[in-house]
């Protein structure tokens, strides 16, 4: 896995979250097991399990005894909410830092975003 993006267990969790957000892992469907994750990402099963447990703690997944882990109802909405709240810090902040370095004003940035919208 990519070493540049945080602890591996977080990356495992983030990847499952992505699948929930983009709909490829629907609510109430079964999440991959720690052994499947471990084989797929070539990581220690304990690390994979830690990623899954993080999602259980967050209420994104829940355990069905003897069956496995499933995506909780409402998980997608919960993740969207969290990601929206993190958006400014994760995306706007580096954008502003680079713009400042290049001498691009906030107004110019806003124009760029408007133009981007128009061209789509």
């Amino acid at each position, binding site marked *: *896995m990519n*070493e*540049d*993006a*945080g*602890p*591996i*267990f*977080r990356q495992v969790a983030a990847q499952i979250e992505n699948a929930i957000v983009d709909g490829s892992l629907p609510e109430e469907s079964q999440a991959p097991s*720690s*052994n499947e994750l*471990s*084989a797929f*990402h*070539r*990581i*220690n*099963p*304990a*690390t994979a399990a*830690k990623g899954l447990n993080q999602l259980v703690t967050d209420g994104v997944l829940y355990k069905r005894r003897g069956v496995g882990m499933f995506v909780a109802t409402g998980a997608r909405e919960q993740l969207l909410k969290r990601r929206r709240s993190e958006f400014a*810090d*994760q995306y706007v*902040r*580096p954008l502003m*830092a680079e713009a400042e*370095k290049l001498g691009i004003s906030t107004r110019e940035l806003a124009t760029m975003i408007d133009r981007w919208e128009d061209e789509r």
Partner: protein
Amino acid sequence: MTAAATVTDVTMRYREHTALDGVTTAFATDAITGLLGRNGAGKTTLMQLLTGHRVPTSGRVEVLGADPHEDDAVLQRICFVKEGQRYPDHFRVRDALAAAATLFPSWDEDLARSLVADFDLPARRQVNKLSRGMVSAVGITIGLASRAPVTLFDEPYLGLDAVARQLFYDRLIADYAEEPRTVILSTHLIEEISGLLEHVVLLDAGRVLLDDDAETLRTSALTVTGPTDRIAALGRQHELLSEDRLGGSTRAVVRLRQPVDAADLAAAGLAVERTPLQQLVVALSTRSAASPAAAAAARTARRSADYEGAIR
């Protein structure tokens, strides 16, 4: 953590040479631990002590609750895959496997067969006539199929190509997931296995330089590039393990003394990357070679604080 194996204040001297110098560490039960370090750091000696092949000059070695040198019942539960393992001259591959099958009570014959097929091992060929890589594959097959509660691999991949090494890692992780056991793996190919490791013990000149969870280590250092004066300023709050200069900019491996927000550093115009485990090991070992005093300081601070999740 319950430990499958512990060494306590172990020193090992060969005539003039001190291979291990007051080593104390523990290997967690059912975890995969990477035993890392440069050539001559003492990795093989430590493995020989853990498998009862040698007796320490001083100190105590305990594996599965007993001294492995004196306890046959414990030795049956330890499998040691040695670098450059020798086999009797007339031994064919199948003889080597049959001998191992009688040696290890938990031997898994089906697993052995499937590994022989995967590695394309010629069962009827004499082991000593095989290529280096094929001999390594025999060792790996025995190591995995032994299913020994404590399995040690000492650079088991010599001569194996990238495809065969990947096969080893994949089969190790799959079988470990199915049947967790204590695995101690010494290797120089740190990047290839860093994801497999739960714990890391780094030896340097016979001493423990680092002993920590792999995930903690992954988040304990950053590689930061930027103007030399700003890197120097960073060095007043944290520890700069290595510095490379190019013109007015410096790239440094920074060991964090307290949590940092990587985004803050980026906002301050510094390029921040995670330090791969291999780079951290190289930086620590190089520094230790350059300065014995720094090595001593690192030893006292070797149990780094828990930075896991410190970097957002």
